[in-house]
Structures are given as C-alpha cells and as structure tokens.
C-alpha cells in the first residue's frame, strides 16, 4: 500500500484511492504517536487530524469532500485510539453484572449500545463525523470502578438504570417535540385568530373596533393637553369625545380615558344597532310611497303652465307629460261625442 501524495485527486468510486487514504491516515497517526511531546487525547487528535487534512490538500468533488474528510479523520482517530494505553468504550461491552457506565455524577448512566446517545458501535466508528452535533468525549477506563463514560454535552440524563435511559431520552425528545408543537399550535392559533369573518356580528367583543387618539397641541401656559378620542365600528358614525390630559403624565392618563370611552361605546353600541335596524326596516316603506309622490309631482309639474311650455319643447318630456293632460281637448271632444252617443 502506498501513501497517497499531497494534492492527489480522490473520489469515492475509486476504492483503491480510499484505501490509500486510510493507509495514509494510519501512517500519519503512527508518526504522530512517535513524535515526542504528543498527547494522545481526543481533542488534540481531532485538531491534528484536521491540520493534516488541510495540509495534504487532497482534491475531491465538492459533494464528496465531507465524506472523504470524515474517512481520513476517522481512520486517523481510530488508529490513535488503538494506540492509547487504555481501552475505549467502543471496545468494551457491558455485562449484566456491571452497573453500566457511570459518569461523573452517579445518577447519570448510559449504555454503550444506546444509539440515541450517539455512542457508536465499533463497526460504525468509521462514519463518526467530526461535524456531528453530538460531541463524544471518551474517558479512559479506571480498573477500580469500571468507569468508562461517554459524555454528551447537550443531553442530561436522570435515570440510573441503563435500560430506562433510552426510554427516558425518547420521552425527552417527545416532550421537546410536543412542546415545540404546542408553541407552533399557539402561533398558528394566534395567526388563525387574526382571520376576520366577512360579516362581523354587532357585538363589541366580536367585531373590529377602531379607536383613534389625536393629541392636540398643548396650549400656552398650560400643562393640560387636549386629546380627541374617536371610536368606530362597522359603518356606524364614530363617537368623538374631547378630553383633557396632563402633559406630564400623558401615557398614564391616556389609559383610563380610553377605557371610559370604550366602555361608553360598548354601552351605546346596542342602541346604534337598534337604530340601524329600525332605519333598515323603515327604508322599504319609504320607497313605495316615493313612487306615488314622484308621479304626483310629475302631474303637478305638468299642470303648471311654465312646465308645460318647457316640456313641449323637449319631445321626450312631452311624451311623458302629454300622455294625460295635453290631448285632453281632443279626447274630451271624442269623449263628449261618445257620451253624446
């Protein structure tokens, strides 16, 4: 196996190149171990792996860069783990007699097989991503208390039994999901509450009420400021009220006045609605007699001599007005003849 030279092109399809890359990573790990002053710790190893990767400047497709980098760093770290004096969690499987993996606090326990905790099985360690959001820190085993731990920064566990940790974690996820869902529901409910119906009821609490506040200029040598409150809903006329407020405590004095105005409008709204209903009921009654009044007015106007003159000039008007009175003389003659007959 040859060491892959710097700047070489690597693609995932070329298995030979991948193997060379792995070999290179392992060789570099071996060389790092042999150097004096090198601390074989996880954090330092990760940094060194990244430095090696950047220094080697391998060429690869943008879509494959992450995967290839992970292969390199994973192999590098794996080799360093193997060379550590203490075994790692991935190499140990807990038995039933063992109390499980004890972390710094005794109440926090996890198992090595728990996939939810981010602990990977040995065969999955190649795919251990550096950019993974769950950071795994391996702690060397001490023979006294068999304390092999993997510490997860983002997750806290409360259960002592290893079997229940997974379910607890799942329940935590469910809880967080449900809480996020609740938040979303609240947001949607709030957003849904903003939908206005096409026809709002004539009830103060169930219709849109528009209230405006106009602060008029302060009079000279006066601490009082006049304000005009106007409240309106539907197509009703607005209710105006003029109030005086102390300019020094303007915002404080606005609230009670606004409350008064709104309360008054709320009390008056049913009367406004009743008036409107009465007007609407009365409206068709007015329309019917209007026709008769119009006809009367037309006949009255036509009876006037001036109007008759003007209507005679215009053919359309004469057609309307002359239908009854104008040919009266001729008709009366005919009628007279009929009656005479």
């Amino acid at each position: 196996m040859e060491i892959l030279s710097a700047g070489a092109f690597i693609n995932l399809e070329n298995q030979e190149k991948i193997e060379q890359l792995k070999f290179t990573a392992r060789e570099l790990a071996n060389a790092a171990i042999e150097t004096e002053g090198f601390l074989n710790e996880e954090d330092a190893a990760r940094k060194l792996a990244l430095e090696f990767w950047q220094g080697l400047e391998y060429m690869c497709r943008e879509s494959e860069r992450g995967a290839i980098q992970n292969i390199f760093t994973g192999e590098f770290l794996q080799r360093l783990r193997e060379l550590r004096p203490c075994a790692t969690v991935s190499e140990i499987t807990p038995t039933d007699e063992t109390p499980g993996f004890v972390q710094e606090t005794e109440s926090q326990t996890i198992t090595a097989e728990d996939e939810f905790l981010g602990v990977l099985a040995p065969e999955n360690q190649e795919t251990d991503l550096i950019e993974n959001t769950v950071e795994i820190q391996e702690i060397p085993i001490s023979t006294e208390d068999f304390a092999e731990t993997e510490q997860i920064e983002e997750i806290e566990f409360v259960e002592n039994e290893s079997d229940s940790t997974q379910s607890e974690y799942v329940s935590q996820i469910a809880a967080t999901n449900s809480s996020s869902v609740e938040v979303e529901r609240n947001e949607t409910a709030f957003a849904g509450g903003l939908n206005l119906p096409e026809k709002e009821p004539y009830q103060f609490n169930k219709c849109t009420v528009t209230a405006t506040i106009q602060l008029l200029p302060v009079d000279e040598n006066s601490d009082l400021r006049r304000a005009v409150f106007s409240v309106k809903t539907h197509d009703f006329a607005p209710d105006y009220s003029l109030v005086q407020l102390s300019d020094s405590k303007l915002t404080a004095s606005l609230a009670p006045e606004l409350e008064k105005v709104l309360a008054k409008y709320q009390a008056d709204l049913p009367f406004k609605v009743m008036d409107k209903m009465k007007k609407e009921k009365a409206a068709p009654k007015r329309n019917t007699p209007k026709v008769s009044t119009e006809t009367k007015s037309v006949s009255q106007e036509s009876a006037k001599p001036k109007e008759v003159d003007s209507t005679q000039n215009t053919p359309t008007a004469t057609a309307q007005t002359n239908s009854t009175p104008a040919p009266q003389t001729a008709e009366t003659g005919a009628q007279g003849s009929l009656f005479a007959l």
Partner: protein
Amino acid sequence: MEQNNQAAAVQTDAAITEAKATIKIEGQEFELETVLAQDDKMLKTVLQPHFSSVENANITREVKNGKLIVSIVKRAQHKGA
C-alpha cells in the same frame, strides 16, 4: 368656494349655545364638540382618520336654535382622482 366660506361665516355669526355640534358627512350624522367643529382645519384634522374625503370637501355651517350644524359635502374630483 369663497361663497361657501362667506356663507358659513355669516351663518356662524349667530350665537352658538350648544356645546356639541352636528356633523353631516357621507350620509351620516353625529355629534362633535363645537370647539372642534368651528374651525375648518381642526375639523379636517379630527375627521380625517374616519373620513378621508373631508380633505377636499365643501364645508358649510349654519346655526339652528343655538346649535352648530356642519354639512360636509365631498367635492367632485377629476377622473382618476
């Protein structure tokens, strides 16, 4: 326009005894403090939030039985206005 102002000025010379004036606009009638209804600028400022047409409208005033009655009629605009 001038005629309207003159007419309003003449009619408002009569003594106003009522504290509230009647405003007639867009087919609606409502009460408003006389102080706010006496001046055109003040009236337009006050009515503007609810009646945008008041900006370019003919305002006429008359006093009936000591009460100020303000009639506001929307002025005809050019097409597209």
